[in-house]
């Protein structure tokens, strides 16, 4: 079974986010990029499927700082093919541009199954998965937390609120938006990543041109103001505990 995993990099929320001088975009000089955690789960799910039923896993990403390390780490986990998309990405790719770019590459690769993170923290024009499925004319199921292969189909466990799961049977080829892999992404020893850099190869593919239509223009980005900021209890933990007990009494829960 051929599995393709498109991944992308997103702002690392550990760092403070700032708006740039245009007032309509994030200040790139302050941005630290990290792999979209849902894409990390997609890689893990793909590797699990390969370990269970065999097959080939291809991981692909657009050029960004730190992408090589992540691709090599994927290889260390068991990915067979690594593809990096290069070119003039301008100020970055929106969902539509990414999906179009991936669609043309995937038409060539012809995977049976495409796994990608269900969403990313910087999605403004939709997540890549559903758009990609649209361009490829494939069925899409998102919020998936479990995948089993059943011949020409897959069974995806789709999450609904309240802990309810819907078992969806999907014909291949299809795109699944991964919410969580069946186990947390595995650890790869740093020395293993270093080692694999000597043997694994990242294929580079040039992006012909970037078509971003389908998104909308942002005229302003800003940080939300707290409509009503919380009353903060100050002092030592003991003092705070005392204040809280007072509030509990006021609220009638004590």
């Amino acid at each position, binding site marked *: 079974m051929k599995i393709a995993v498109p991944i992308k990099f997103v702002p690392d929320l550990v760092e403070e986010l700032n708006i740039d001088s245009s007032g309509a975009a994030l200040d790139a000089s302050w941005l630290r990029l990290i792999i979209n955690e849902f894409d990390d789960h997609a890689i893990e799910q793909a590797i699990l499927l390969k370990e269970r039923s065999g097959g080939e896993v291809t991981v692909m990403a657009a050029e960004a700082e730190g992408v090589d390390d992540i691709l090599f780490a994927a290889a260390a986990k068991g990915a067979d093919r690594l593809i990096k998309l290069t070119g003039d990405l301008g100020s970055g790719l929106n969902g539509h541009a990414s999906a179009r770019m991936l669609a043309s590459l995937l038409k060539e690769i012809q995977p049976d199954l495409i796994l990608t993170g269900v969403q990313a923290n910087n999605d403004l024009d939709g997540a890549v998965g559903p758009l990609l499925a649209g361009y490829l004319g494939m069925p899409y199921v998102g919020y998936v937390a479990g995948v089993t292969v059943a011949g020409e189909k897959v069974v995806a466990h789709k999450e609904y609120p309240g802990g309810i799961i819907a078992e969806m049977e999907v014909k291949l080829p299809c795109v699944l938006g991964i919410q969580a892999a069946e186990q947390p992404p595995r*650890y790869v020893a*740093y020395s293993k990543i270093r080692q694999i850099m000597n043997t694994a190869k990242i294929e580079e593919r040039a992006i012909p041109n970037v078509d971003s239509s389908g998104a909308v223009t942002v005229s302003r980005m800003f940080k939300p103001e707290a409509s009503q900021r919380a009353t903060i209890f100050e002092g030592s933990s003991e003092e705070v505990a005392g204040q809280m007990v007072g509030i509990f009494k006021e609220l009638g829960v004590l």
Partner: protein
Amino acid sequence: MAITLVPLGPSPSKTFYTSLLEVKEGERFRACLQCGMCSGICPFGYLMAFPPGKIISALRAEIFDEVVKTDSVWMCVSCYACTAVCPARIPLTAGLLTRTKEELLLVGNVPAELQTALANTQRYGNCLGESPRKRADWTMGIQPEINVLGKTRRPVDVLWFVGDYASYHPRLQAATKALAKILNALGINFGILGPEENSDGDSQRLAGERGLFEAMAQKNAQVLRRYQFGEIITTDPHAYNALKNEYPALGVSYPVRHYTQFLAERLDQIKPLLKKEIKAKIAYHDPCYLGRANGVFDEPRALLESISGVELVEMPHQRANSLCCGGGGGGMWLDGFQWEKAHVRLSDWRVREAVASNADVLAVACPYEPPRFEDAAKNIPSASRLKVREISELLVEAMGN
């Protein structure tokens, strides 16, 4: 948890054994008499499927693959007790246990908590997952302003390697600021690396991530080369151990001391500053990596005794025989895992000893310890009045500001 094992190759036991012989002083592995001292003194040895001595016998019996399947080696806190008592002086901690953890990491047999700390170190240069940009935030408001070398580029006499916990952990920032106060009061010309500093990586090394340790060391080496300084002092014994014993083999060699050694040398200048009396019985806990592993016992005690009113009490386990707080070798990041197996914490043991020795204060010299001992004290009724203080905090208290 499903674990997929990658075959280690023909005769994993032989391959591993050969690699052990190649570590520093590794030829001593041949001299193991199977006396059992190591397994006996190991604080968690009773819980391990394969305590140190048994790992060696497993290697000799060529069943090392059994060792790799169990996860009990993660109970090892790299406290050096085994290495210290081995009659054949085999490098058990740094050689055997560390290398075994490396093998487990390679096959992915590693608890999730530890994974996170290792991933954080790789990404952010600190095990806590904090933004590297905020590493020097603890210096805000301190007068005179702390010299962050990347900003001022001034040559200094002393480079103070602060460390992850000392920089970011709220409880420990108090001790870090205390040390800054003392250095300023002594008029020391010092600087810190601030956001350019990366984790010393020593605990990560002992937790099996040799590759990560070397990556951190390389980063620190590049940064250190940019600046001019006479010597390095460290807040914590783990950084001291790394810089003194491990970095030189990677081509990074500077004179380095723990802050207690640096201050003890200046006792004559410090004594006049200690205007306030601290009337208390103080038990000093020898940290594994300052005491047992590196032989520094007297200087911290000298500092404590210079405070008037202090009565130093010794706990039964002292100096080279000290009890580990449980934080080393990845222990700081294996709390949940170790608790599930043991339902007892090494830090509890130590706190009980301090109480039994009638101590009012448990003095420490390693950033792992204040949070660990304070947490333990919370769970032990008789320890409700025991205070845990870094030596730097006690000195500042005695300075009277």
